[in-house]
């Protein structure tokens, strides 16, 4: 049987030269992401801003959104968003957080339930009060920061500090771009998004670490090779693995995206973007070449001149 060879043996792409393009491009994209974040904002879900989310299914054929909107908007609950959710019978209602503390949220749910009555099946009801949403937002933010710091410390122990710093820059780059994507696509930003971001972080680093491992090995093995050559060789020799692993992860995520249902749709979409698109790119085009600027293997060029 002839085996599939996605990447030919002994590739010799000059990835490092590409940094003159990849760095400005990444910088630009990051700026765009930040601008998006501030102009579009994130579509914060009820986990972080409080409020009520209801997933209802019409019992009599496709849901009449207009009629439902009319019914609900007459309740005086402020902003109520309705949106089709998957099947034509399914509707997602989002009621903004009610003024008047914790009890007011429950009262709002009762009102909506009363107004819609038995014509729909209540598939999911989530109510997050002001206190819990504030806490969740704090936990989410702290969690991201703690994860980044924890991973940095680990890398610092295992590699030299330049590697940890390089990985950190790559890290922040991934998160910034993914948040930009979420802002652009207006994906619900909730607890599962934090989970997605942390997973993206983990896997993007996984990739970076594989390449860094090889760089470290080559630094020991080829004392005289110039830094860009060494980085190129390291990335090229791990390229096949990077691609194959990404194919398998993509296949797994694709299955989740297509068949996993709506409940985890935004989760997998975010992950797809972060792990597959950004993560791989970052490891090869940012995390590796940035080591040149961080002073890894400083003096190698000079030594080469001497030789």
């Amino acid at each position, binding site marked *: 049987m002839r*085996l*599939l060879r*996605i990447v030919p043996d*002994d590739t010799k792409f000059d990835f490092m030269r590409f940094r003159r393009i990849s760095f400005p491009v990444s910088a630009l994209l990051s700026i765009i992401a930040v601008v998006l974040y501030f102009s579009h904002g994130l579509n914060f879900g009820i986990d972080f801003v409080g409020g009520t989310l209801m*997933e209802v299914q019409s019992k009599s054929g496709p849901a009449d959104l207009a009629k439902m909107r009319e019914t609900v908007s007459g309740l005086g609950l402020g902003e109520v968003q309705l949106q089709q959710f998957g099947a034509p019978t399914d509707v997602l209602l989002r009621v903004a957080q009610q003024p008047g503390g*914790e009890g007011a*949220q*429950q009262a709002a*749910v009762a009102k909506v339930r009363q107004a819609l009555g038995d014509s729909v099946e*209540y*598939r*999911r*009801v*989530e*109510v997050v*009060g002001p*206190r*819990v949403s504030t806490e969740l937002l704090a*936990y989410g933010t702290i*969690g991201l920061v*703690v*994860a980044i710091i*924890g*991973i940095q410390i*680990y*890398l610092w122990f295992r590699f030299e500090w330049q590697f940890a710093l390089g990985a950190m820059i790559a890290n922040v780059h991934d998160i910034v771009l993914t948040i930009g994507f979420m802002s652009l696509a207006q994906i619900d930003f909730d*607890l*599962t998004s*934090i*989970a997605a971001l*942390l*997973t993206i972080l*983990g*896997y993007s680093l*996984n990739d970076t*670490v*594989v390449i860094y*491992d090889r760089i470290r*090995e080559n630094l020991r093995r080829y004392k005289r090779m110039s830094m860009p050559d060494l980085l190129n060789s390291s990335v090229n020799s*791990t390229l*096949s*693995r990077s691609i*194959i*692993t990404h194919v*398998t*992860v*993509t*296949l*797994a*995520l*694709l*299955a*989740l995206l*297509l*068949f*996993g*249902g709506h*409940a*985890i749709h935004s*989760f997998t979409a975010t992950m797809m973007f972060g792990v597959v698109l950004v993560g791989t790119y970052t490891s090869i085009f940012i995390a590796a070449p940035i080591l040149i600027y961080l002073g890894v293997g400083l003096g190698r060029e000079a030594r080469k001149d001497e030789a």
Partner: protein
Amino acid sequence: MLHFSRLKVTAVLLTTFIFCAFAVPNFFPEKTVQSWPKWAQRHLVLGLDLQGGSHILLEVDTNAVRKEKVETLRDDVRRVVRENRLGSPAAATIRGTTVEFRIREGVDAQVALTKLRELSQPLGGILSATGQRSVDVVDAGNGIIRLTPTEPSIIERIRQSVEQSIQIVERRVNELGTVEPSIQRQGLDRILVQVPGLQDPSRLKELLGKTAKLAFRLVDQTVPIDQALTGNVPAESELLKSTKAENNQPYLIEKRVVVSGEDLTDAQPGFDQRTTEPIVSFRFNNNGARRFAQITQENVGKPFAIVLDNEVISAPVIREPILGGSGQISGNFTVQAANDLAILLRAGALPAPLTIIEERTVGPGLGQDSIEKGKLASYVGSAMVIIFMFLTYGLFGLFANIAVAINVAMIFGVLSLLNATLTLPGIAGIVLTVGIAVDSNVLIYERIREEVRAGRSPIMAIDAGFTRALATILDSNITTFIAAAVLFYIGTGPVRGFAVTLGIGIITTVFTAFTLTSLIVAMWVRWWRPKTVPI
């Protein structure tokens, strides 16, 4: 790397087998599993997002506890003042979180201080003496003494209230007759109630939202209700409204409680024999029976009110003295309302009101959908990865697939062993693990390919490939594990389920990479003595 001692082979296979075996109970119906020995019964628990149910986070009203604490202190101060003739009891008043008392002229401030200091008890008993006391007593000068409950004593009281509340919540929830409800304390002042398989949580919320403080009080007839409504309310009475079922009628009710719900020994729903209207019949303990008998004897012909959480359920006229220590409550109940009231009265009153601060309910329909979608995604995802691996690495791809299959079985085994909760994001975590777990194989195989290209003999190449790749595998997985650990710590519910499967998946992945994959390859090398490496 390729040499395995017999002992090591046995150890690896045994460990793998044991962990896989723990997954077995999940494939048998619950009934069958229950007949097995206890240690073999551990199994996965489906999260509320998969089996449907309600997750309700309650917060104990700590302000009410603080308020009650100060009020109790004021009453204590008044008692001490009265007993020791330190002044007029009414001179002890509440100011914010403090009780203030002005000593009568001519009374020695030191004596008063000494007497009032007796109210301050050491906290935590003799064994855990911390030197902290329950009340701060301060001489503010000018004959004024201030008493404040200390923060540790309030925290202690909150802790007790939460403990008590949990017991009462447990009793109320158990009355609903649902399967395996879980009630846990969270943090200092929160209670998490998880009830699987509940279609509509309204009734549960209704039951949890009531403090259920029941009181029998007399109706104040000294002032006509019309006048009371315009503001002429006597000091020892208050205006209360009746329930919705009784049309929210206003009543003027004496503040004094004749008999409280604490004196009830039983409450049962039933029907009135004459009107066939739903009622709740109750029975008092001795103390309550005596007091109730006395009051009803003294007040024949007058109305008394049955008040629940400051709402008048009904205000019947006392036709004759009630001496038997039992009676019934009517109030235009529906059957369900009578039922619920009986539950509440039996379970007892909460020490402080509970507020629902978070609710997540998933209907059984959506749960079932999620299970099916999760299954489909798992099968499709796994199949695609398996096929791809086989196409890419042939025989070695097959080895990788065996390792991944065992890996997944072990994940289920470990999850069962921990009695962990499987959620939809958790399933996503497992699918993702399948995608990632093959990475360790890819790392090893790619390394072997490189070593072959570098001109090594097959066995040398395989050995070097394993040795070099394993360090990388460890490094790269630890970073992801850190992310999973953080996620576990900050996440709740479904997200935590994801963190759990992700974390366990990483551990089993590293385990299989280090042991099983190399074992399979070592066996193959030993049996076939390959001339070339087929990858």
